[in-house]
């Protein structure tokens, strides 16, 4: 009696041939290029056309290529720094929007979306114009050479973080915090024992997302990078102009691997937090 019967079931596509074919074509188009890219990174040939046998020499070559290594370390440095800064900014923004009331609050909610919906090319150009307008110094010393890219990345990444954390915090109503007080927690214990553990899955997930967003960004980075601050995607782009070598396949494969790992954990943390939603 108490259990309600659900009257809907997901469409059983294995019984529907049309759906089966469409799904198959869709998956092929989506994943074949990526599989192809990964496969040919192990191809013992200078060209990506015929399979000539397995080799890992292009991966070994990668580690000898100083330019690529520099670009990679630039990318990682930028990604880590902008992840830390944008997670912090996103967290504080989310808390401000959740807990406090201030003038024009609802417009801040909308304004937060702008960096996400503005075309990336416009974002990149505006950043470029902005930096030249304020005469952002052209640093020669690493890692300060990366400062303009980091600022640009933070500005479009932190809204993602804020939105994810804000969605999580909206589940935490006032009564829950009051229950904490009622059960003997002081203000700081409420923050330490309820608010922080409660939002930590979203915090970790959004940090991982921020990391991948920064790592694989091309457009904004392209406009804000200088000769001393080439990142991996920008470097790959410049290499492609001289033809696609298996080396590019190899470095792309590594990039895909890092991003898959990050995304996997981000989704795991997010789904853990989704399980706790009380309907």
């Amino acid at each position, binding site marked *: 009696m*108490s259990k309600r019967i659900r009257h809907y079931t997901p469409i059983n596509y294995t019984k529907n041939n049309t759906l089966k074919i469409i799904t198959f074509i869709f998956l092929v188009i989506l994943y074949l290029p990526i599989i192809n890219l990964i496969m040919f990174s192990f191809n013992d040939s200078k060209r990506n056309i015929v399979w000539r046998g397995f080799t890992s020499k292009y991966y070994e070559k990668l580690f000898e290529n100083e330019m690529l290594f520099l670009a990679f370390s630039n990318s990682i440095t930028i990604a880590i720094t902008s992840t830390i800064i944008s997670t912090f900014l996103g967290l504080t923004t989310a808390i401000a929007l959740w807990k406090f009331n201030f003038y024009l609050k609802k417009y801040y909610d909308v304004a937060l979306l702008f960096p996400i919906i503005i075309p990336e090319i416009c974002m990149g150009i505006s950043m470029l114009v902005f930096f030249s307008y304020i005469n952002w110094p052209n640093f020669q010393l690493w890692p300060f050479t990366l400062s303009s890219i980091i600022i640009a990345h933070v500005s479009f990444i932190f809204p993602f973080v804020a939105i994810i954390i804000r969605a999580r915090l909206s*589940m*935490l*109503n006032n*009564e*829950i915090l*009051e*229950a*904490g*007080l*009622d*059960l*003997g*927690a*002081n203000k700081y*214990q409420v923050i330490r*024992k*309820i608010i922080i*553990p*409660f939002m930590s*899955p979203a915090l970790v997930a959004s940090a991982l997302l921020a990391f991948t967003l920064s790592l694989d960004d091309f457009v904004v980075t392209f406009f804000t990078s200088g000769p001393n601050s080439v990142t991996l995607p920008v470097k790959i782009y410049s290499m492609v102009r001289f033809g696609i070598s298996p080396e590019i396949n190899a470095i792309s494969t590594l990039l895909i691997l890092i991003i898959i790992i990050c995304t996997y954990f981000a989704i795991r943390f997010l789904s853990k*937090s989704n*399980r*706790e*939603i*009380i*309907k």
Partner: protein
Amino acid sequence: MTEKKTTIELKKLNKRFGDIVAVNDVSLKISENDFFTILGPSGCGKSTILRLIAGLEVQDTGAVMINNKDCSFVPANERPVNMVFQSYALFPHLSVRDNIEFGLKLKKINNIDRKTRVEEILELVKMNGYDFKLPSELSGGQRQRVALARAIVNKPKIVLLDEPLSALDANLRMEMQQELVNIQRDLKMTFMLVTHDQDEALSISSKIAIMENGKIIETNTATNMYEYPSKKFSAEFLGRINIIEGASSVINNRILFNSDTFGKINIKQDIKLPKDGVLGIRPEKIIIETGLNKQKNRVSMNGIITNWTYYGDVSYITIELKNKSKVYINVQNIHRNSLQELNIGKKLFASFDISDLIILEK
């Protein structure tokens, strides 16, 4: 019998929110082991009283005494009271066990004691085996039990319940009401409940206070509150009642109540009728008769049935007397066959005992 200890005493408590007076000069005493209920329409300030006791709000004036200690300005986390919130307010990221242990951990109770206490409580609220479930994986009734367990595991001086059953369906609510009473009796704890549901209040509380517009109108035991209310508002709030307006006069040492509805009624001498008081008679005290009952202590009437609402076990009937006044009667459905006599438009004789009359202040 010795006098019961007072657990909570409110002294002239006042609380305003802007222009709204939520709690207006409320003084209350709640004794140990009481199941005390504040009953009132929504928005009358009853939840605010709970929040003032819990320390989640601070009173404007007045004092909250807990076990004869002034706790008016003790912060919520240091008060020996625990609350069951209307939305249950379980910590969504913690398992059932972690939710219940939350208060004990803050009190630094050691592992072994904590474990046994949680086991006991889970057993008590019939939730053993659910230790590691998340609140989102529980049904409404189960969440309710966990919320209750989380409060009582701390052995507070008083458990405050803010309309905890309002989100449950009717059958489950009945079951939980009974369980609340049993738990309260077993643990010998003091419970304080806030509700707008008069049936709930009557069935579970040992004492009821009726509240309107931030004021406590009347406090009494549950049965006395229903049978002998002294205020018209509380009589009407606790269920249907026929209000008999009129004026009293003293003739030959007897009090006569000259009513608009039933004419002259002889009230017993020992009852004092307040100025501009009215009489009331509960609908179930009126009995259907086959003809006019001429007994001395009974008031008789006859009228036409104008309304009939069937509830299965009982029928709510409205009859209209010759003088156009309406009388509510509740008829127990004792025989199936007698249902046919209760058609709209039929003439009905009925009477009630004078001793069942309630004297009410307006």
